[in-house]
């Protein structure tokens, strides 16, 4: 693996560009998707079909006053939104977009991504606490308990994949699934893994929706109850950074799901693979996440936590044991 | 006996064996009163025209007893309204009771108090609905309800020092 400065620079710019473009244009996708589901058209004024709307929104956010209310903890208040962006962008370093496009293929890339996800949770906690607003504190408390609860089944199901592929390196996991959709982890026919892998996929997908605080798990920013939750006191780019962080997390979650279960950059019919298949897969997953948000109402906090602790964790542990048994037997 | 009859009989307990219960409130006999104060007792007006099946005029201190009788009969408190009669120097408080389901029987219980010291006992321990209705009557007319746990203004600002629905209110 080269360590040339040009390569590092290329990937630095590339990843930042990918993350920023996604954050901006996922907002457009969300607004259009929401609109169509709600039988209206969404942004159409600015640019063709509203494609320049994110630009207009970005300019608006940047030109607003960066209000820091009196009585907040100055350093932490300013730090929290920045901290919210860091895990998302840094996780993209290890994601294999295709066989040749990957910033860094690390041996423990999966572990890196999960470790950084916890950092995102801390950003929410700090943002809510530093605001000094009762609504924000309630929302942070909810967000932390939710993220904690849903990280566990996510890790357990990721371990099942690691056990099958024998490596934590995302590139190796993806390479292991090359050759058509019957090789993908979700349908793994060999050794009878197809019995357990689809359960892993569903649990992992639910957890990734919950980890990124998307409806129906958006307790933290329950708009109708807590005004804007932990983001209440943030204006302008503080709010902008939190929202960008959320969208980048969605992208990372989709990339991870695609890599772990759907074969990464592999073509489903065994023909030429490439980065475009990867892009297609993650956008189908992101569209599903958007679709779910605009269809379902919100759950209650105790039902949310019950779902994780009493249903997802036992199922994922049973899944883990079954996978281990299958590996041992075959 | 139909509902109106049963209720009337129950309410008659308010006026039983009290020859002197009909001491008028000061001002009852003032001439030129815009609306004649009704005599003490129970009457049955035309429900089609007035919307009421029974009308009861009682003394201010009998209001709680009337509420209790009607509570036992299964009525609910529909509204409490105040009326200002400045010509006779009186204020009247109207209690409307009705039935929730079954045959309708609206009962109007009225009590008159003097305008300078309008005081009535509260019925909020019999009907919790009276809590807010009495606060509103106090807010608009200045009628004090003795025994009310929290007699503060409900709709006007807390620091207002006027009672707008009085006829002599000047903004």
């Amino acid at each position, binding site marked *: 693996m080269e360590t040339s400065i040009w390569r590092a620079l290329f990937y630095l710019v590339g990843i930042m560009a990918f993350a920023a473009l996604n954050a901006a244009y996922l907002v457009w996708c969300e607004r259009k998707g929401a609109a169509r589901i*709600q*039988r*209206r058209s969404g942004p159409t004024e600015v640019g063709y079909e509203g494609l320049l709307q994110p630009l207009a929104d970005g300019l608006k956010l940047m030109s607003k006053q960066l209000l820091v209310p009196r009585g907040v903890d100055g350093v932490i208040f300013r730090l929290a939104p920045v901290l919210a962006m860091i895990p998302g962008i840094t996780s993209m370093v290890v994601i294999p977009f295709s066989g040749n496009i990957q910033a860094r293929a690390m041996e423990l890339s999966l572990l890196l991504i999960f470790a950084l996800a916890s950092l995102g949770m801390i950003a929410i906690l700090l943002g809510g606490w530093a605001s000094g607003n009762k609504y924000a504190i309630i929302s942070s408390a909810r967000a932390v308990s939710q993220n904690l609860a849903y990280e566990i089944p996510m890790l357990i199901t990721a371990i099942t994949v690691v056990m099958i592929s024998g490596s934590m390196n995302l590139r190796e996991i993806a390479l292991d699934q090359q050759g058509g959709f019957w090789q993908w982890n979700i349908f793994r026919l060999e050794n009878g893994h197809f019995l357990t892998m689809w359960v892993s996929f569903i649990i992992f997908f639910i957890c990734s929706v919950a980890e990124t605080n998307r409806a129906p798990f*958006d307790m933290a920013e329950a708009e109708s109850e807590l005004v804007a939750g932990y983001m209440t006191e943030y204006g302008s780019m503080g709010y902008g950074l939190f929202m960008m962080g959320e969208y980048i997390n969605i992208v990372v979650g989709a990339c991870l799901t695609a890599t772990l279960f759907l074969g990464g950059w592999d073509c489903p019919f065994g023909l030429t693979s490439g980065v475009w298949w990867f892009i297609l897969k993650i956008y189908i997953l992101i569209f599903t996440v958007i679709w779910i948000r*605009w269809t379902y*109402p919100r759950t209650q906090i105790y039902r949310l936590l019950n779902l994780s602790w009493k249903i997802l964790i036992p199922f994922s542990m049973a899944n883990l044991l079954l996978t281990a048994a299958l590996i041992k037997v075959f | 006996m139909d509902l109106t009859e049963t209720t009337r009989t129950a309410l008659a307990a308010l006026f039983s064996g009290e020859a002197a219960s009909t001491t008028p409130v000061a001002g009852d006999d003032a001439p030129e009163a815009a609306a004649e104060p009704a005599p003490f007792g129970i009457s049955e007006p035309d429900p089609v025209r007035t919307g009421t099946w029974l009308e009861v005029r009682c003394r201010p201190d009998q209001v709680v007893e009337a509420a209790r009788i009607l509570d036992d009969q299964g009525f609910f408190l529909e509204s409490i*309204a105040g*009326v200002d009669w400045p010509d006779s120097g009186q204020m009247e408080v109207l209690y409307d009771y009705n039935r929730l389901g079954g*045959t309708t029987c609206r009962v109007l219980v009225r009590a008159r108090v003097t305008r300078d010291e309008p005081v009535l006992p509260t019925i909020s321990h019999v009907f919790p609905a009276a809590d807010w209705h009495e606060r509103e009557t106090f807010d608009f007319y200045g009628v004090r309800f003795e025994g009310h746990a929290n007699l503060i203004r409900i709709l006007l*600002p807390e620091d207002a020092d006027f009672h707008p629905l009085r006829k002599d209110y000047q903004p």
Partner: protein
Amino acid sequence: MNVPVHLRPDETFVLNLGPQHPATHGVLRVKLTMDGEYIVHAEPVLGYIHRMHEKLAEAGTFAQFMPNTARMDYLHALAFNHGWALVVEKAAGIEVPERAEYIRVITVELNRIASHLLWWAAFLLDLGGFTPLLYAFDDREQIIDLLERVTGSRLTYCYMRFGGVCNDIDDEFVAGTRAFIQRLRGRLPRIYHDLVTHNIILIKRIKDIGFVSAEQCRRYGATGPVARGSGISYDVRKNEPYSVYPEFDFDIPVFPEGDSMARYMVRMHEIEQSLRIIEQALDKLPGGPVLGKVPKMLKPEAGYSYSAVETARGSLGHRLVCDGGKNPYKLKLRSPTFSNLSLYGEVAEGMLLADALAFMGSLDLVIPEIDR
């Protein structure tokens, strides 16, 4: 879920569900004393949109108060029009022609459906489902277009007059209403019930939440869907019939469970019953004038009158005291939501914040009606 909560002054904090809040449907302030996420004490604070309509009634003539009636509960303004017209017609002894009564019923029931649709949309918005708002507003737009043809207004109607209504309906209105009935009947099972009412997240969110017993309803004077959701069969249209409601064949949906789900189902069934009433009224619509003979300056004889009508939120009462003059001497508006909200303090104790907000949504509050 309600849990008994012990008040520990050093461990509770006061959260202000302030006048500006997405969930309080208007300017209502609720002072919540909270223990974590549990409510220890809830105290609604009213008066943020108090406009003293009762004094305005005394200041003008009877006819001058008609526009005010629509400004109180703007979602079911025609019922408020109707209540005021009814009490003055009782006091003055005015006859209303039959066609006018039928038109009154048709428009009031259309308005009731519109009000319930908006309640449904706002309730789901409180619970986090953003999309049903747009679906309900689609149907509501049809109703508003129909009513605009006839009354001239979209929301705050001043359509009824003493002795009838001010404008007759035409064939296009009748055809449009029939088409609307067919359309809504087709949409109710698919879009409203399959997608939303049977949604497991919604059911878990409102079933067994906010239990109100029938005795509590009686003690607090709650009427309308709140009482009917607790098993009390009380509807002014059936128990104290007015206008031409006795001519129609319709049911009163009553659900005994007393939770938010029961109140939800009562309102959804009421939409269907209103459609039945409108259909029958259109079939039986007689000809004739739409406004009776009324003196130019109304001076009802002195006396006390009361009229009750059934609005979307409960029994609306007008207590009128006349003194023979051309202005009302005293008007007391008995607002249904005022009584419905008074039981909030007792029921919300021990609830979780999210559940308390779902319960508030199921009460169907319109704050200008409470504050008058």
